[in-house]
């Protein structure tokens, strides 16, 4: 086994994939956020009635847009992702696409209690062994601890940045915040932390002027780009918090740093992320409600991608809960690129006007 070098990027799609394991293998974690374009060739592998963000990722793989990656980790976070693992392997194994890259798989339970944490620890351990063999490295407990420290620092800094949006006049827009979080998921963590400290220094002392429209929470399916947030903010509202796996869920909790078993600590933290895919609906609602109160929102926009069953099944339950708690909710169902902009604009405009 060679010592872990700092080189190469490993792509991942879900925030239930511990970045620390990729860093422990001496690679840079690179979050795949999608291309936001219509798909053509992916439909030859998977049905059209499928999570569009998954089809989008597969299209990127087929088109060679991820050829800079050494490999990719697909997690079992949905029926669609599970099958993406198969299709991605087939797509990358096609001889005309150059040297085959490694597609790793991580099984993720939908519960966070002791037995499910143990099962996830075993799955993480299996992933680590597979990565060690494929990349010819050793992922040591020390390497994992170091990576946990680095990623926790990123989380703490992003949490501070997010808290600035609790102010009556937030010093940064939802669009800018989304861009920062996306960028943090695709770049070297030491550099990210250094830059985040500078951004915070500037924003924590900034004075904000100007009127602020209705304060909104955005929740639902993954967004690959801030297009929808820009559209909402152009219409006079402000997205002050977002329960998205490409937003605040990314840094929702810290990993325990002093645990004698770093892998177990990772398993606990990554199952505690309150994504909609987890089965515990009560915990999920508790998290959403707390978020709405802490960020003092006046309304909620629930976004679902077409055919994204997790959200399509969750929506009526969460909508009812929000409405009972006094928060108006607007549902937007769309593709992963905004095709029906005019229709969405009209609905968001009417919603923000209603919120006053």
């Amino acid at each position, binding site marked *: 086994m060679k010592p872990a070098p700092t080189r190469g990027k490993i792509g991942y799609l879900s925030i239930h994939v511990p970045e620390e394991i990729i860093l422990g293998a001496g690679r840079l974690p690179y979050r795949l956020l999608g291309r936001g374009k219509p798909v053509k060739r992916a439909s*030859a*592998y*998977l*049905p059209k*009635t*499928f*999570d569009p963000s998954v089809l989008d990722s597969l299209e990127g793989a087929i088109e060679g847009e991820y050829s800079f990656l050494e490999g990719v980790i697909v997690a*079992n976070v*949905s*029926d*669609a992702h*599970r*099958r993406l*693992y*198969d*299709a991605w*392997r*087939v797509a990358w194994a096609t001889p005309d696409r150059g040297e085959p890259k490694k597609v790793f*798989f991580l*099984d993720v*339970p*939908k*519960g966070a209690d002791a*037995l*499910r944490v*143990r*099962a996830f620890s*075993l*799955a993480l351990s*299996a992933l680590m062994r597979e990565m060690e063999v494929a990349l010819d490295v050793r992922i040591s407990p020390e390497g994992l601890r170091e990576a946990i420290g680095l990623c926790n620092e990123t989380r703490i800094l992003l949490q501070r940045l997010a808290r600035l949006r609790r102010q009556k006049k937030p010093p940064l827009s939802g669009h800018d915040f989304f861009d920062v979080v996306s960028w943090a998921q695709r770049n070297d963590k030491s550099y990210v932390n250094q830059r985040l400290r500078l951004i915070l220094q500037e924003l924590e002392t900034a004075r904000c002027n100007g009127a602020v429209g209705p304060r909104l929470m955005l929740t639902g399916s993954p967004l690959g780009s801030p297009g929808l947030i820009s559209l909402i903010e152009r219409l006079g509202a402000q997205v002050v918090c977002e329960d998205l796996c490409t937003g605040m869920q990314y840094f929702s909790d810290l990993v325990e740093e002093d645990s004698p078993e770093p892998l177990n600590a990772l398993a606990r933290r990554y199952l505690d992320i309150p994504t*909609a*895919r987890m*089965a*515990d*609906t*009560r915990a999920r609602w508790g998290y959403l409600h707390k978020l709405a109160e802490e960020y003092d929102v006046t309304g909620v926009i629930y976004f*679902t991608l*077409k*055919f994204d*069953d*997790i959200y*399509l*099944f*969750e*929506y*009526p*339950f969460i*909508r009812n809960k929000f409405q009972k708690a006094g928060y108006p909710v607007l*549902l937007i*169902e769309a593709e992963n690129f905004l095709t029906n902009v005019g229709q969405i604009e009209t609905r968001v405009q009417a919603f923000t006007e209603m919120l006053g």
Partner: protein
Amino acid sequence: MTIVEDQRKRQREFFTLQFQKRLKRPRGYSPLKSSQARERAMFRLLLESFREGSSVVWKSTFVPSEIIYSLGAIPLYVESFSAVASAVDICPPMLDASERCGYSRDSCTFLRAVLGASHKDILPRPDALVSTSYYCDGDPKIFDIFAEEYKKPHFYLHVPYAAEAGWAVDALAEQLEEVAIELAKVMGKPFNRERLSEIIQSSNEARRYLLKANELRRHVPSPMLGCEAIDYIASITQLWGSPELVRISRLLCEELEERIEKGVAAVEPEQFRFLWCHLRPYYNDEVFNYLEGHHKAVVAFESVNLITWKEMDPGKPFKSLAEKLLANPAIGPYERMTREVAKMVKDYQIDGIIWMSPWGCRHFNSMAQLVKDGLRREMDVPFYILDLECIDKRNYSKEQVRTRLDAFIEVLAGKRG
């Protein structure tokens, strides 16, 4: 809303009437006695679950019924309620109700029908709910929502994707034992391991008969219509562990043996032999009647009747049940399913595969193209992905389906030359 026993009684009477109508429906074939016994057993199970004092556990597809029977409770596989409701034509209002609640028409109709039925409060009420990660995304989510609504506990089983990994069996067995103990607490009785061992023996006995029936169905010409065989859904029936399933499967073997001995064919003259993958439309028999009656193309076997698990060890019930769950070829990479489909094609001398693909199904649909391409690398067998809805008759178009089937039959005929 409090449901009083008087209303429960009326619900039982309503469903009894519907089932009687269903049993007397005109059919294009003369059903086997075992098939009629199976239908009656399913209806009895549902009616029992409406009875005051019955303990009912709602389960998703692969939750082992054996554990629930061992606790003296009734396993209610809620998706089968949707199938029954579709068969007795009460599904459209259930689906309408779910749509009015905000559930998307793009999602699974089995689950939406249950959501609508729950909203209309026509379901037997659960004492507890158990779901697994297979199938599919919707199950654990809506089971947890139901648990909130009915104020009952929901237990979730994570079935490892790495079904063949060394640790998978133990990780799942631990969870199964935990669920059994927790369910026993809900029922207010201690968990009885010996009783579970007895149930496992019963399950093994039924498995032996159903395996034999599957063997008998390899006979050419086929002794049984796919139209009635597919309803056994041997891989997922909630009757596993019940004495009824032993009786039904034994009778099925006897009847198939008798038919083979007497030279009775399900379809005469048998023109083609199909493998049917996935479930079926429950609102009518037209597709099967058209294939088997009009085209004389028998559905010789169905993927849902595949039994892939080995005999269970009653002394190690949880480990055995874990192995049973993990033997499911739909778990893990698509190559596992491709392997099984290839085997079925050989075992049943299949001429063509029909892979039914309902609009709202993400789990099974998503494998279709991958399995088709995988098979193509191994064998030359025509494979047709048929868009067809299981539950919602509003999305069924008789002529469109017939045209597609005609075209597929033409391909098979052309291949034969």
